[in-house]
């Protein structure tokens, strides 16, 4: 079965510092990987995705993610964190096989706290 894991429940970073939110995946075949952000009392918003091509994917709000096949990771990064980046971040993988074709599996979420 396809799955993603987010090993950190919470990440704390000071404003202006780089941030990394970790995600590892377990899939058979080529992975379709996604990052989403959820602000309090809101729905999930799409940030970026990796389908194929360059391992470094750029997305919304200055975020990027690096696909690493050997380490089966898809970590979310930003060079300089903003207080407004504080939110809950979800990594997801889309199942491409047979009857599960439309399933998106989400990680458990990582709460990012950016302190002024």
């Amino acid at each position, binding site marked *: 079965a396809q799955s993603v894991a987010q090993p950190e429940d919470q990440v704390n970073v000071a404003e202006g510092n780089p941030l990394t939110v970790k995600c590892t995946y377990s899939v058979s075949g080529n992975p379709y990987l*996604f990052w989403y952000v959820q602000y309090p*009392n809101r*729905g999930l918003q799409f940030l970026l995705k990796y389908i194929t091509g360059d391992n470094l994917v750029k997305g919304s709000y200055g975020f990027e993610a690096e696909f690493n096949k050997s380490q089966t990771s898809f970590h979310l990064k930003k060079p300089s964190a903003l207080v407004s980046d504080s939110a809950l971040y979800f990594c997801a993988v889309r199942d491409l096989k047979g009857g599960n074709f*439309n399933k998106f599996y989400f990680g458990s979420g990582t709460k990012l706290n950016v302190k002024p």
Partner: protein
Amino acid sequence: DTAVSQTPKYLVTQMGNDKSIKCEQNLGHDTMYWYKQDSKKFLKIMFSYNNKELIINETVPNRFSPKSPDKAHLNLHINSLELGDSAVYFCASSPRTGGNTIYFGEGSWLTVV
């Protein structure tokens, strides 16, 4: 224009009641979903429809019944509500092709008292 809209946003109801949550998407997507987010923020898929046809039905009590009158709408009806049904329910949609993104509504906060 809201891409995926769901109503109501907040719903407080008593145990044993029956309630419905409605969802509509104006993105022209073929596939729609219901996800449940529990108090620990864990997201779990409940149902998925593709062009009005049920394609994913996870282990969900049969008190939960989805209905898709057309591919732009997916409603969720819940019978005999229980305390454990309290959660945030998200509607979502996506194009059918594999590389495409899933888009979420703003959520419906259900509290059963």
